[in-house]
C-alpha cells in the first residue's frame, strides 16, 4: 500500500472512530479515549528512535512535559489555538531532541539510555525552578466552555489527538518503507558495519532523535487543556516514560502497528483498572506486563502472531 493511500485509510478509520464515539454520548468515553490516543502518539514517537534505531530513550516524560509547559507559557502570555500550540510544542521538543542527539552522538547503548534519564531530571529541575509556569506549585489553565466545529471541548481535544495519532502513525509507516527506515535498521543491527558501508549514521541518528522528540512534544502540547492543572510531578510522571517503553515492547518494535496495538491494549487496561481498582495498581500491571513480555515474547504481540502464521503455512 502506498503512503498516500495509507493516510486516506487511516483518516477513514479515524473518522469512523470519531463518529462511533459521538454515538456513545458519554463524556467519560472521550476523557478515556484521549489518554489512549495520547499513548498511541507517545509510543509511536518512542518507537521511531527506540524500535527503528535501537537507542533506548528513558526520558520520554521530559519531551512530553516540555510540550505541555510550552503551552502553559504561551497560554499565560498570548493564548493561541491548540493546533498552533501543538506545532510550537513539537518544534521545541524537536530542538531539544536534536540537542540531545548532538550531546550524546558518541554514546552507544547503555550510555545513551542513562544520558536520557539524566536529561529528564535536568529538564524537570529547570521547570520546577521556573516560577513563570508555576514552579513546583503548578499552574491552572482555564479552558473555554465550548470549542469550534464540534461544540464540546473534550470532544475537540479528542479530535485533535485523533488527527495527531494518524499523523504520527503515518509518519512512522512512511519512515519504515523509505531509505531513511532502512538506514535506521542498519544502525539497529550493526552500527559499525553500517558506518563502514557508507551509511551516514550520525545524521540519521539526529533525524531520529529530532522526529521522536518532536512527536512527544506534540502529544504533550494539549495536556494542560485536558488536565486544567499541571504541576511538575504530574507532567514529568514516570508513568509516561514507562508506558512509552512498555507499549512498543509489548506490541512489537519493528513495525508501525506494534506501538499502536500495545498502546490500545495497555492504555485500555489502565483506564479500566483506574476506574475499577486504583491508579497505583494499574501502573503495577504495566510494569509486570513489561517484564513478562521482554522475557517471554521478545518480539511482542506482532512477533507472536507472525510466528503463529509462519508455523501454520509450513
Amino acid at each position: 500500500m502506498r503512503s498516500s493511500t495509507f493516510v486516506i485509510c487511516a483518516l477513514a478509520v479515524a473518522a469512523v472512530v470519531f463518529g462511533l464515539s459521538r454515538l456513545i454520548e458519554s463524556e467519560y468515553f472521550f476523557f478515556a479515549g484521549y489518554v489512549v490516543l495520547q499513548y498511541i502518539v507517545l509510543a509511536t514517537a518512542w518507537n521511531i528512535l527506540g524500535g527503528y534505531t535501537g537507542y533506548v530513550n528513558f526520558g520520554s516524560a521530559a519531551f512530553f512535559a516540555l510540550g505541555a509547559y510550552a503551552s502553559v507559557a504561551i497560554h499565560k502570555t498570548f493564548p493561541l489555538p491548540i493546533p498552533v500550540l501543538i506545532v510550537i510544542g513539537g518544534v521545541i521538543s524537536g530542538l531539544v531532541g536534536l540537542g540531545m542527539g548532538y550531546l550524546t552522538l558518541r554514546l552507544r547503548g547503555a550510555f545513551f539510555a542513562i544520558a536520557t534519564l539524566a536529561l529528564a531530571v535536568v529538564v524537570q529541575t529547570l521547570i520546577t525552578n521556573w516560577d513563570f509556569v508555576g514552579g513546583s506549585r503548578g499552574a491552572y489553565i482555564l479552558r473555554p466552555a465550548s470549542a469550534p466545529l464540534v461544540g464540546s471541548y473534550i470532544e475537540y481535544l479528542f479530535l485533535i489527538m485523533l488527527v495527531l495519532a494518524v499523523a504520527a502513525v503515518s509518519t512512522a509507516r512512511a519512515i519504515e518503507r523509505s531509505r531513511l527506515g532502512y538506514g535506521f535498521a542498519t544502525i539497529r543491527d550493526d552500527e559499525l558495519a553500517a558506518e563502514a558501508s557508507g551509511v551516514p549514521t550520525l545524521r540519521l541518528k539526529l533525524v531520529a532523535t529530532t522526529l521522536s522528540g518532536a512527536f512527544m512534544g506534540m502529544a504533550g502540547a494539549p495536556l494542560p487543556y485536558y488536565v486544567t492543572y499541571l504541576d511538575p510531578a504530574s507532567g514529568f510522571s514516570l508513568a509516561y516514560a514507562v508506558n512509552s517503553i512498555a507499549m512498543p515492547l509489548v506490541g512489537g518494535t519493528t513495525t508501525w502497528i506494534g506501538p499502536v496495538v500495545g498502546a490500545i491494549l495497555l492504555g485500555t487496561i489502565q483506564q479500566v483498572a483506574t476506574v475499577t481498582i486504583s491508579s497505583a495498581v494499574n501502573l503495577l500491571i504495566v510494569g509486570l506486563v513489561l517484564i513478562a513480555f521482554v522475557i517471554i515474547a521478545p518480539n511482542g504481540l506482532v512477533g507472536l502472531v507472525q510466528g503463529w502464521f509462519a508455523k501454520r503455512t509450513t
Partner: protein
Amino acid sequence: MDIPYELLINAIVAGLLLGGFYAAVTIGVSISFGILDIVNIAHPAFIILGSYLAYVLNSRFGIDPILVSIMMLPVFYVLGAAIYQTYYLSFERRGHEALRSLAFFFGLLFVTEVTLVLVFGVDYRYVEASYIGPTLHFGFVDLPLRMLVPFLMAVAMLLALEYFLARTFIGRAINAVAQDQVALKLMAADPIRIKRIAFGISIATTALAGALLIIIQPVEPSVGREYIGRVFAICVLGGLGSLPGTMLGAVLLGVVESLTATFYGPSWAPAVAFGFLLLTLAFRPAGILGR
C-alpha cells in the same frame, strides 16, 4: 567576609561526608555495571527497598538500622543471585539483547517503586537511633553524627570490598571474568557462577546503602530516582569498576552538590548531579571509558 568563609568550609566538609555515602550507594553499580557490564538501572530501587526494611524493623522492634542491614545482607545476596539467574537465562544466553534487558531492569525499578507505594503510601518514613540527633563541633566546623556514621560505615564497606576483590580467589575471579570470560572457562572456573556471586554482592551492598540513606534523610518510594543519575555519574566519573575511582568520583560529586545547595538552594542540587553526568558522558567519548 568571615561568615561566607566558614560557610564554605562547612559546605565542603558536608560534601565530603555526603560523598562517602554516595560511594556506598555507587559501589554496587561499580561491580554490576563497571565489572560485569550489566546495566542495572534498578539498583536505586533496591536501595529504597533496603531503607524500607530498615524502617519496618526499626519502628516495630527498635532494632538499629545498621544492624538490620547487616542481617539483611544474605537475603539481598540471594535476591541478587536470583535476578542474575533470570537475566542470564532470558537475555545474556540469547546473545545481544541490550534493548530488552534495559527494559527489564526499568520494569524492575518501576514495579519495586509502585509496590512500595501500594504497601507504605507516599509519606516520608524515617528511623530512630541514638546517633541521629547529636552533632560534633570542631571550632566552627560541624560534624553531624547523622552524616558521620554513614560516612564511616561506607568507608568500611569500601575497604572490605577492595580487600575482597584484590586478595581473595573469588574476588580475583570476578575481575578475571570482566577481562576474559573464555579464559576463565579454560581455567575450569564457571564464569556464570562467578558473575552470579558478583551480582549477588552488588545487590547485597544496597541493603547497607539503604539503611545509611534512611539515617541521612527521610525516605519515600520515588527518592530512588534521584539516585539513578548520581550513581551512574559517579561510576562513569570514577572510571567504571575501580573502587578508589568510585570513592573519588563520589566525593567530587558530593562536594559540588553540597556547594550548590549551600549557595544556590537545595532545589538545584539534583540538576547539578545530572548535568555533571551529561557533561561527563558528552565529553568523554566511549573509547576513553574503556569500552
